[in-house]
């Protein structure tokens, strides 16, 4: 072939453009702007559990912040291959990411538990005491 990897480069460019348009930046919604990392949110006994797939991100490169009802996931994923290599296929991306999500309630920040294992980030977010609904007894 005249230009090896030309098609891959073009497809990669298209993928990058799709990613930009998929960030939600051009939408009216204000939440879930960051496209990476994708997250799944689960409910467990009234508390929320956030799961994100972050393969190959070092623990120390991950920065998780919780404030009120927002959670921020920031970090960097670096991919290194040695020198003098020729690539047959490059599908994984090195990327810096910073994503803030709005949660349906205020989070008890001192009770947040984050765990990173096998490339999965699991953050348990329990509801703040002050934000919990109160049972009213009729007198």
């Amino acid at each position: 072939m005249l230009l090896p990897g030309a098609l891959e480069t073009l497809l990669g460019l298209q993928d990058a453009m799709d990613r930009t348009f998929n960030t939600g930046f051009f939408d009216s919604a204000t939440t879930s702007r960051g496209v990476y990392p994708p997250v799944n949110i689960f409910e467990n006994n009234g508390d929320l559990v956030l799961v994100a797939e972050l393969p190959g991100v070092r623990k120390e490169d991950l920065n998780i912040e919780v404030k009120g009802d927002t959670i921020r996931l920031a970090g960097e994923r670096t991919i290194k291959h040695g020198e003098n290599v020729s690539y047959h296929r490059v599908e994984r991306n090195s990327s810096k990411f910073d994503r803030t999500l709005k949660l349906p309630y205020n989070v008890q920040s001192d009770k947040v538990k984050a765990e990173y294992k096998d490339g999965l980030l699991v953050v348990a977010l329990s509801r703040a005491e002050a934000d919990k609904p109160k049972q009213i007894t009729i007198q």
Partner: protein
Amino acid sequence: MSKETKEVTKAKNRKPEKTEYAGERTIPGKCYIPKTDIAETENSLVVTMDVPGVKKDNVNITLENNILEVDAKIDNSPYESLNPVYTEYNVGHYTRRFTVSNTIDTAKIDANLTDGVLTLALPKAEESRPKKIEIS
């Protein structure tokens, strides 16, 4: 609210994060094609795959008739007690096949799984390594 009537919000305007494996499978559950880098050095072929959520014991790698097959299974059990409320990606097993052109020294294949990234080092057999020819 019962589990059946609960609504799950799926992220709109997102491309599916993963590509589903098209072949037929004998095990239940979804199966995806892991994102992969393949780099070649003088002495080896290095295959790197993203398989988040996979444990070491659940990876099966075979190389037969120049076809390298990687099968990685995830553990679904932690998800069983959780109810999804908002989803952006699907969870499933990973599988992928490659045809390897260089003659690989099958006895010396090295596999390593760290933080959801599977790295396979496939050393080239002695006879298929590039030889430098000196002019006499």
